[in-house]
């Protein structure tokens, strides 16, 4: 890769404790009081690099930790272990004040535009707030000028900027939240399921808008989604997650033409496509285990048809083969 790394993630773990207070932790087992400390392992050992200028898509089913990954990268929540670097600088250890210059560089677009816009702020106020916070030197006229510019760039009529979010449709609201992210001229955007809440014909509009912004502003995207058709279209690289770990990381074309990891194969075969019967998908046995008690070894072994003893004991590391990185013993041993 010739490009420079923008975000580097090393050994990232995030656990959410279930039992918070000391009284919560005490339970009675076998006639004795026992202290129990359980946690949801949302991320377990994620290694990932986002290169400048790429659109990295993260896919996976609900509960696999993809949204947690987005939030940890944005420093909205602190990781339990591991480090995150923005260019060369570690950002996971920084405090709120120190993070401010990074907030200007990285912005987020959320899933539900009905919930992510403040209903009591007009579009203008919503867009002005990040601008004045990050560029205190701007005067009112300059800020207004920028608001007009950014609303126009997302296809919203600037004369509507004194309206409130409820006066807009879902697609328009999502355009406004994209405008809010673009308002501070970021170089990196994390989009967490930005089109899942929208209708089919509107999804195409918003996706086009995001692609236009990518071209005009040389943005780097981390795009979180469960919709694989969108990934195929939008992403330059894809990371597949399962139960808090990365199982495959590959260029989009490569991943869709020859998926390596057994889970990726099952996931791709399950997408309902036009003109294809539903019977020829790979059936996974069992269900996703709970992230409270992760299975030993490879987290996927309970549902994998290629699982061996080694898979049950040892956690596979992400290994690179040509341009694909896969975490699977069976591939490493050449069994698949």
């Amino acid at each position, binding site marked *: 890769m010739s490009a420079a790394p923008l975000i580097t993630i090393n050994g990232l773990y995030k656990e959410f404790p279930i039992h918070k207070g000391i009284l919560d932790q005490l339970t009675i087992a076998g006639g004795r009081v026992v202290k129990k400390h359980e946690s949801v392992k949302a991320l377990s050992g994620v290694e990932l690099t986002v290169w400048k200028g790429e659109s990295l898509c993260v896919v996976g089913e609900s509960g696999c930790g993809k949204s947690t990954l987005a939030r940890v990268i944005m420093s909205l929540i602190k990781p339990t272990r591991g480090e995150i670097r923005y260019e060369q600088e570690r950002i996971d250890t920084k405090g709120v004040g120190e993070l401010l210059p990074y907030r200007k560089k990285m912005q987020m677009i959320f899933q539900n535009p009905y919930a992510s816009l403040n209903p009591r702020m007009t579009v203008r106020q919503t867009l002005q707030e990040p601008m004045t916070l990050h560029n205190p030197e701007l005067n009112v006229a300059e800020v207004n000028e920028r608001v007009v510019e950014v609303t126009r760039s997302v296809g919203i009529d600037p004369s509507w900027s004194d309206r409130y979010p409820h006066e807009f449709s879902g697609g328009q609201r999502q355009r406004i939240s994209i405008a809010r992210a673009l308002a501070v001229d970021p170089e990196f955007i994390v989009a967490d399921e930005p089109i899942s809440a929208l209708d089919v014909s509107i999804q*195409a509009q918003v996706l086009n808008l995001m692609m236009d912004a990518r071209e005009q502003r040389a943005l780097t995207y981390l795009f979180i989604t469960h919709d694989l*058709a969108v990934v195929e*279209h939008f992403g330059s690289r894809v990371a597949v997650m399962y139960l808090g770990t990365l199982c495959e990381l590959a260029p989009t074309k490569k991943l869709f033409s020859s998926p390596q990891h057994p889970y990726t194969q099952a996931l791709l075969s399950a997408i*309902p496509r036009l003109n*294809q019967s539903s019977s020829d998908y790979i059936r996974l046995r069992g269900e996703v285990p709970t992230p409270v008690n992760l299975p030993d070894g490879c987290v996927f072994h309970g549902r994998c048809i290629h699982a061996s003893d080694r898979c049950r004991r040892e956690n596979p590391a992400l290994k690179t083969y040509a341009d694909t990185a896969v975490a699977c013993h069976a591939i490493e041993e050449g069994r698949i």
Partner: protein
Amino acid sequence: MPGGVPCEVRCRHRDPQRDRSCATAPVRIQRRHSIVSLLEVKNLEVRFAMRRQELIALRDVSFKVEKGERLGIVGESGAGKSVAAFSILNLISKPGYISSGEIFFGGKDLTKLTAREMSQIRGNQISMVFQDPMMTLNPVLTIGTQMTEALHAHQDISREEAKQRAIETLARVHIPSPATRFDQYPHELSGGMRQRVVIAIALITKPPLIIADEPTTALDVTIQAEIMELMMELCESSGVGLILITHDLGVISQMTERAIVMYAGRIVEEGDTRDIINHAYHPYTHGLMDALPQKTKPGRRLNQIKGVMPALSSIPDGCAFNPRCPLVIDLCRTTLPQFTVFGSTRVACHRAAARTD
């Protein structure tokens, strides 16, 4: 539906591929004539009486479902697809009401039934599967209670027998160890398992028709594939008719035989699912298909439909799609298009003929 359309009309289309489908058409017409349709909706209109004005959520909606047929209804949110399904079961609550039209099921007009007669049909003759299994199941009742409830309401059956039936039905939807599941609560099951339970509840009274409103939307893709396969299998093995409401064209394509496309409260196109997917006549249907990411080369701009669907309070004159339509002509702005038949498809568009060339 082209059930009553003479074959000459269907065959006037020049496309050789369609002529082939016409060759089989008379047989199909015969079949459709010989049996009374399972469900027939005629000129249904549903209105919502708001404070300032009456909104018309459904206009002139007519369709049929044959025995054992799987019909899909596609459309964006607000197109009226859920209203159509709910009105079949008379589940439209105030301020909404069915203002005109008829719904024939089992020789009766469902719109004329009393609340009591209707509740004999709901859950017994026609069952419903809703989108979110978290919301459909009662969290404080066991799976068993919720399953046998429908049986006790509609049939004179002993508790032992009801339990037996429930366990059998759970096994039919491939729930492992059904006897244990019977006594468990919804929270002890995963999302996919819960949706299986919901389907089992819908099936337990052996209804001839099931209405499924976005049954897989809340599920992950791998689970969605399992549930879709299960529903197909059940429909085929027991001859249950299915009305499947979804916004996902992929799901429609895989699960249904016939599909209806709705826009702003009206049916704009109806036909065999294959034809709708491959040869859409209505510019809206065509636009929907074209907007799918797989229709464009990766990285290129998607073919979007401009604008948004109009609100019910401001539906334009003529064809409701005219402000967004790439083929619009003056006639579209003034006159409501009537249905034209092309092969298996009927389409409400003035410019549909332009698509056949």
